């Protein structure tokens, strides 16, 4: 077929950022997948609860301390996370570096708290279905913290190399921050479910 040029794109920017970028949409799609997974885990929890004569099965309700501390830390981590997003948008390298170091640390703290959360539910995964689903939810969320932490660590290293000062990298930092918001956001319903639903 013959071609006829009808549009000149020379002046169009060479990198789409924010919601114009395919990566942003990809991240969103993966969040949708994982969000569905979390939602299903909660549905399973409620389903098993509806079948059990007594809930939690043969064990006291979970102790609140560790889980609540977790919630506080995660919610608090949103503030520096927002700052990092802003710095990445402004392509402010020193601040982004600093922010990433902070976020790496803030990724490690929840993992430490999580170690205390598992005993706080007073049941092991192989005792009964209640234990199984609670451990599944905690486990699922832990893997998300862990993967985001590793991603943050890799990005932090990357931002200290010569590859750092690049719009694409700042985009990655922003997307990573968006993913952390997601990790925090999914925790809230899980927290409510694990710690408060049995107290209703």
């Amino acid at each position, binding site marked *: *077929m013959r071609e006829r040029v009808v*549009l000149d794109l*020379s002046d169009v920017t060479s990198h789409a950022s924010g919601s114009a970028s395919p990566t942003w949409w990809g991240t969103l799609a993966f969040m949708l997948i994982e969000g569905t997974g979390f939602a*299903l885990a909660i549905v*399973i929890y409620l389903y098993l609860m509806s079948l059990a004569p007594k809930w939690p099965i043969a064990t006291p309700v979970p102790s609140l301390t560790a889980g609540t501390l977790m919630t506080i830390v995660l919610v608090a981590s949103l503030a520096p996370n927002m700052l990092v997003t802003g710095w990445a948008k402004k392509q402010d390298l020193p601040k982004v570096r600093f922010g990433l170091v902070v976020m790496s640390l803030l990724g490690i703290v929840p993992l430490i708290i999580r170690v205390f959360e598992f005993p706080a539910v007073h049941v092991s995964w192989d005792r009964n279905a209640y234990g*199984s689903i609670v451990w599944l939810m905690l486990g699922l969320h832990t893997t998300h913290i862990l993967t985001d932490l590793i991603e943050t660590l890799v990005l932090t290293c990357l931002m200290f190399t010569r590859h750092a000062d690049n719009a694409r990298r700042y985009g990655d930092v922003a997307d990573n921050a968006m993913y952390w918001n997601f990790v925090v956001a999914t925790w809230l319903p899980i927290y409510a479910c694990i710690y408060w639903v049995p107290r209703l």
Partner: protein
Amino acid sequence: MADGAPRKDLRDTALDSAELDRHLTSIWHTRGGLWAAVSTVDHKIIGRRYIITAFVFLFMGGVLSLLMRLQLSQPEARFIGPDRYNQIFTMHGTNMMFLFAVPVMEAMAVYLVPLMVGTRNIAFPRLNAFSYWMFLAGGILLWVAFAIDTGPDVGWFAYVPLAGPQYGTGKRADIWAQMITFTEISALCVAVELVVTIFKQRAPGMSLDRIPLFVWSMLVTSFLVILAMPAIMIASSSLILDRLVGTHFFNPAEGGDVLLWQHLFWFFGHPEVYIIFLPAVGMASTIVATFTGRPVFGYLAMVMALISTGVLAFGLWVHHMFVAGLPRLGESFFTASSMAIAVPAGLQIFCWLATLWMGRPVFKTPLLFVVGFIITFVVGGMTGVMVASVPFDTQVHDTYFVVAHFHYVLIGGAVFPLLGAIYYWFPKITGRMMSETLGRWVFALIFAGFHLTFFPMHILGLAGMPRRVYTYQPELPWSGLNMMVSLSALVLASGFLLFAIDIFRSARNGPAAGSNPWGAATLEWATASPPRCYNFRRMPVVYSGEPLWTEDELQVASGLRVDRRELLVTAVVAATPQARESSVPHSIWPLWAAVATSIVLIWSIFTPWAVVWGSIPVAVALTGWFWPKGAPEEES
């Protein structure tokens, strides 16, 4: 930009066609050799591989079905023992659903969608490569297990407790569950790529109402994948946990529940069948439009039908559990919702009929398959409506009536349009036409063989024959029909064999096709057959839903760089240009990532520690994947 100011990058603006081809080829080209072959990220090469692999699985699954038909041809036959038979029907169903039907539809989309929306590569090309390797690994896992007599034997929906730790001893059920993980990872990756390709990489001017119907169908399908597959991932992971570390999700003695599995499986399993069917609908629409020479009647209605089928698909799962003993009122709700799906399905059929009526049908092989599809799928849809009725289903559930229903909709509703689509797009993919004469024979054999094979199954089911039996007693009045079914399956198989022959012959000696042999309207026909590695020399711009019918020259945009892989990112709704985005070059890392992931998944069948130790190489591979290598594509 014509002022000739010094610029470090090279644009396509000033280049003539030959020079442009040379530059584009040098950056998009996949070199020869094994290393280049396994590190390519060209969606066409991966798509072709994907399609071929899926068809190989179709033939392997088909051979299994012939074995089943051999055993069932006579009462109390002793060709295949019960243990092997159970592995065979499980393999057949699992293979057909997870290794053939879903992947083949995604594969067609991997090849076609970027061409149809007018872009140069799929979004996230490396993820695409990774997804193919995961699919291949999952398929190999399943078939190797079968070869060493460890094939799953619990049916393609692996009901617990039969598949649970107590009754499903050995590793058979684990293989099944882990194969699910492989294929779901790969399906999810493709779904994400397609959604983003369709949202962000459409040609300028391809607003929502100009998207080809096949692309629409893949968009809806991808959302179904994204929302349905997590359910089976959670289900199969819980099953593995029950089996490996002693959790009690499905153990009623410890507060678990057997029906929880069924709910989770079918919450995925029902949308799964539309994941297979909707792409086929898109193929049918494409073929109908081309061979009637007019756009499909009721574009908006067709799109709404796709979307509403997709939405309804999540509200039907209980119709697979009508005899499990759920409350009657709830079941009646699912009768109503299941039947309601006849409305969008009917709407689509009526729109095709109207198109055929008002257009001028040209009876080439692709259209024959679509006509066969309409005839057959409507039968399957009708039996679907029958089994959607709770009381009706209590008689035919788990009988050959249901086997008949789902082969009518799977083969009649999805494989027929798929075969039509192969005849239709083969010239684009290979540059050669398939044989019209053989095509008619293939159609006749498959169509006749199909109905002779599967129609009698309705009667067998009503006459009381349950499914998944390795044999039946001679005094039951089923042997005559079973023999007929088995013989007819040979006719059907010969049709498939002829199809394979046609493919091989035509790929080598078929007449050259030219860029648009059918006079079709969509963008994939605007480029060479087979398309060059960069798809389009210049990014197409469209002003209608049928660009090749409404304009006699291809409208294009210029201004992209040709010294790195570049394509165009456009706005989600209006498809106005937003950026000249780079597209990643070849990489070996997706293969390493797939190898590392496969090791974790297979190892974790045996010990939970695999997840801990195995994730280290996965993390290394993913870091290698994303770490910048200084390519021009990584500049901003």
